[in-house]
């Protein structure tokens, strides 16, 4: 076996050489002979009945392939959790940019003009665009009451706490939509032949989501649908569900034309038509004792799902479960609701509801601190969950996590106390105001509740003819390092050098369904399955007497070669089994919500320039406990990248809506952070280990998205003494608030040291 552990080492990224040499093949880099290019004709209004479609003059329409809903062989829907979203609108449109017709032509340059030449007449219907409008049911646009999904989480006897409370603290917090803004726009290529069925190649996160959607749409059996992931240039949740739509469109054009069809969105189309983070509104009403302990509270968490249900129910679930933050609630009632509006459906984005509800929780903690007269540090310390205590869903914390210690370490690294004192002693006069903000939070790894049990993921490991092993998973690489870390796990399990493990390209003809690449589940859940399947390969070789225990890598390779030459290809499969003693009640939303939580304390230091009202983040400390860190370089890269997106979410990234359509769908006017906008982001890990994941790893991908927004906004409030409860917090919002005397805090005096 290996003397040198591979897990815990920063081995070279598997596909790194191809990425730095430009050899990686992304979908737009691929060309098939005789290929057509596809484009989408979309709704220009938010809601209405389609009256008439006219194909304008001056276009050689006979050269174009035109697809409408009538050309769909199976069911006109993008099958996901529910089946309410059509692939192509027929009678009604329910949001701007809803797909209505598809065009294809051999010359991609002719498509924009052709799309423009299709004119659609509508009978417009009144539309709704905000959570408030949706709740008032001025127009019912979905179901009976515009509600996609509700959850109720109840714990303890909430009704009795109000009279015991020393303080009752209320607050309302909102977050805006956020565009994932992966640098590679969405794209798909589809090819069809009647004998083999449909094949799609694309930029995507979840091959089997697309597989399922195409089976229903094309009315084809599983073996006649093939989905292949190309190198994918960023995703962040934005390529979880919408790629099924684009694959469906490319497939329909390929079926009708009999030729391969490529659809590549340009930036504008990608931004205005595809999914974004759900806008949210959270209301807190909290009973707190005189000494600053939470006694109980009501949390109403509502998200805007857009026009169709898509992933809203699961985003809502994660947001609701995280809404109480890393605190002990003796009693709580969390009401969560996802509502419909006439905007394009909102979808997955790193964090999946948790950044929204945790923004509210962590802003609210600062408000509680001010009300009670404690510091932001002390209020958190007095309410942190302790091992043995139960979360809002009654999940008992079994890990030896010490959040107070985590907080202390973050305070020390950031030099919090000294800095805060020095900012206060400067009386905050002049043009530049400085402040410090804290966010403490948690993030559950893997699917929620019984989700992993339903997914029942399968992973394969293959012994190859050259003595190496190949990992077969549908888990996709899109920057996080999936291939690298899963290779480390297999190599470690088998005692082989890292170079002896390769990972198959995700292709549904080749790899089993190991679930979607979402929910910070790849390393913890899929990684564990990779480990057991890899060990199974060694067992096969040992039980066929080709290998003995305590083998060397050379002996393993020789045995593997021998096995393949004797018996041909051999593979070992491993299927997810829920750990014993895990209890989850889907009805009451109670029990073990996640197999493991990652924990974190982030601290932001900001300067607000009162001339321009702009905020700059000067320092950022990100300290987290994520179990064992399997690849320090990748883990650090994940955290820094997540924090950067979180800073964008809080200070820069504003989707400007008009009648349900994004008005700033360009990189020129939707602003994400550049290298000049970001502070040094300092990353630190605590490692407690975790029994569930492979080699003690928990999920890491989404966690860093949760903390930056509240930490930054808490710091801005600390600097200015003015409350800000909505993000994104742009300079104009700061200016408006500072010019409005009613927005000044009652509790601007420093309460430090009490």
């Amino acid at each position, binding site marked *: 076996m290996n003397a040198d552990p591979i897990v815990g080492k920063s081995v070279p990224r598997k596909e790194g050489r191809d990425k730095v*040499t430009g050899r990686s093949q992304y979908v737009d880099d691929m060309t098939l002979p005789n290929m057509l290019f596809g484009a989408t004709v979309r709704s220009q209004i938010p809601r209405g009945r389609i009256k008439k479609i006219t194909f304008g003059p001056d276009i050689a329409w006979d050269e174009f392939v035109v697809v409408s809903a009538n050309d769909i062989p199976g069911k006109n829907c993008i099958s996901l959790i529910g089946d309410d979203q059509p692939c192509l609108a027929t009678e009604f449109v329910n949001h701007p940019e809803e797909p209505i017709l598809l065009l294809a032509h051999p010359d991609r340059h002719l498509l924009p003009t052709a799309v423009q030449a299709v004119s659609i007449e509508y009978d417009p219907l009144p539309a709704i665009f905000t959570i408030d409008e949706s709740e008032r049911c001025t127009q019912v646009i979905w179901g009976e009451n515009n509600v996609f999904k509700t959850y109720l989480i109840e714990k303890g006897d909430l009704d009795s706490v109000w009279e015991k409370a020393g303080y009752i603290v209320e607050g309302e917090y909102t977050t805006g939509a956020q565009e994932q803004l992966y*640098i590679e*726009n969405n794209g798909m290529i589809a090819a069809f032949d009647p004998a083999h069925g449909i094949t799609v190649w694309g930029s995507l996160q979840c091959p089997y989501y697309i597989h399922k959607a195409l089976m229903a749409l094309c009315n084809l059996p599983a073996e006649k649908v093939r989905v292949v992931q190309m190198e994918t*240039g960023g995703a962040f949740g934005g390529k979880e569900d919408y790629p099924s739509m684009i694959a469906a469109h490319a497939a329909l054009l390929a079926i009708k034309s009999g030729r391969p069809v490529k659809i590549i969105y340009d930036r504008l189309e990608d931004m205005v038509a595809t999914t974004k983070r759900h806008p949210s509104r959270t209301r807190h009403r909290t009973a707190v004792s005189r000494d600053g302990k939470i006694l109980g509270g009501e949390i109403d968490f509502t998200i805007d799902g857009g026009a169709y249900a898509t992933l809203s129910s699961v985003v809502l679930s994660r947001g609701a479960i995280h809404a109480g933050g890393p605190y002990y609630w003796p009693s709580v009632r969390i009401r969560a609701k996802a509502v419909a509006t006439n905007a394009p459906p909102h979808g997955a984005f790193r964090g999946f509801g948790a950044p929204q509800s945790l923004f509210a929780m962590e802003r609210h903690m600062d408000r509680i601190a001010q009300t009670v007269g404690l510091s932001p540090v002390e209020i958190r310390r007095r309410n942190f969950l302790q091992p043995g205590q139960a979360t809002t869903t009654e999940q008992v914390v079994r890990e030896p996590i010490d959040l107070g210690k985590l907080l202390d370490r973050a305070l020390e690294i950031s030099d919090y106390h000294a800095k805060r004192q020095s900012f206060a002693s400067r009386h905050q006069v002049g043009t530049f105001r400085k402040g410090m903000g804290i966010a403490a939070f948690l993030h559950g790894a893997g699917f929620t509740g019984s989700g992993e049990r339903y997914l029942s993921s399968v992973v394969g490991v293959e012994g190859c003819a050259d003595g190496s092993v190949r990992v077969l998973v549908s888990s996709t690489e899109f*920057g996080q390092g999936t291939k690298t870390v899963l290779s480390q796990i297999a190599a470690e399990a088998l005692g082989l050098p890292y170079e002896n493990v390769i990972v198959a390209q995700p292709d549904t003809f080749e790899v089993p369904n190991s679930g979607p690449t979402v929910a910070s589940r790849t390393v913890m859940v899929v990684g564990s399955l990779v480990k057991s399947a890899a060990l199974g390969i060694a067992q096969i070789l040992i039980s066929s007497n080709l290998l003995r225990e305590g083998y060397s890598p050379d002996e393993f390779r020789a045995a593997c070669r021998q096995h393949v030459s004797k018996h041909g290809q051999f593979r070992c499969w491993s299927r997810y089994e829920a750990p014993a003693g895990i209890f989850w009640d889907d009805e009451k939303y109670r029990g073990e919500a996640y197999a493991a939580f990652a924990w974190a304390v982030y601290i932001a230091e900001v300067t607000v320039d009162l001339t321009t009202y702009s905020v700059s983040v000067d320092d950022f400390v990100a300290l987290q406990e994520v179990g064992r860190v399997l690849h320090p370089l990748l883990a*650090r890269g994940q955290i*820094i*990248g997540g924090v*950067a997106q979180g800073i964008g979410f809080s200070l820069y990234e504003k989707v400007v809506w008009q009648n349900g359509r994004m008005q700033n769908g360009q*990189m020129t006017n939707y602003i994400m952070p550049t290298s000049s906008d970001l502070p040094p982001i300092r990353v630190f890990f605590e490692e407690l280990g975790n029994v569930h994941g492979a080699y003690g790893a928990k999920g890491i991908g989404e966690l860093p998205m949760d903390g930056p927004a509240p930490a930054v906004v808490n710091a801005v409030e600390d600097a200015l003494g003015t409350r800000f409860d909505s993000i994104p917090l742009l300079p104009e919002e700061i200016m408006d608030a500072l010019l409005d005397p009613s927005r000044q805090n009652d509790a601007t005096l420093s309460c430090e040291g009490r």
Partner: protein
Amino acid sequence: MSDSRGGSDKLEISFTVNGEPKKVRSYPMERLLDVLRLGLGLTGAKEGCGEGECGSCSVLMDGTLVNSCLVPALQAAGTSIVTIEGLAHGERLHVLQEAFLECGGAQCGICTPGMILAALHLLNQKPEPTIENIREGFSGNLCRCTGYSQILEAVAEAARRRSTA
């Protein structure tokens, strides 16, 4: 994407790409990005925004860093272009490519070719850049994965290796 042919006929355009003389037939207003990707099969330059904001299509034109989505083919006539494909010698990586690999400068990889060319341009101008030079030098190249730190570290590391080589 707009119709970039502008009613004109195709012209023969000669230029040097990665040290080799090339001739392509292209419409004068066709984007250099499309000429490279579709005409020459050099797909390392990527389209991220098509309007000069993201820098994923960055290439060097006569030593200057340009967004190839904004350069008409005609303007590239007679120039010398360097793309990501021109950096490694066979299997031997350029020092910047090595540093990006080792420092975690590439995650999803889509911005990486543009980033590496921006880095090459920066190091050609300032062989020993400060961290502020690097931050500024990259403010025209967007990356959504890394938060930039490991890219900046890769450039600093490459500069260090070049100065000690």
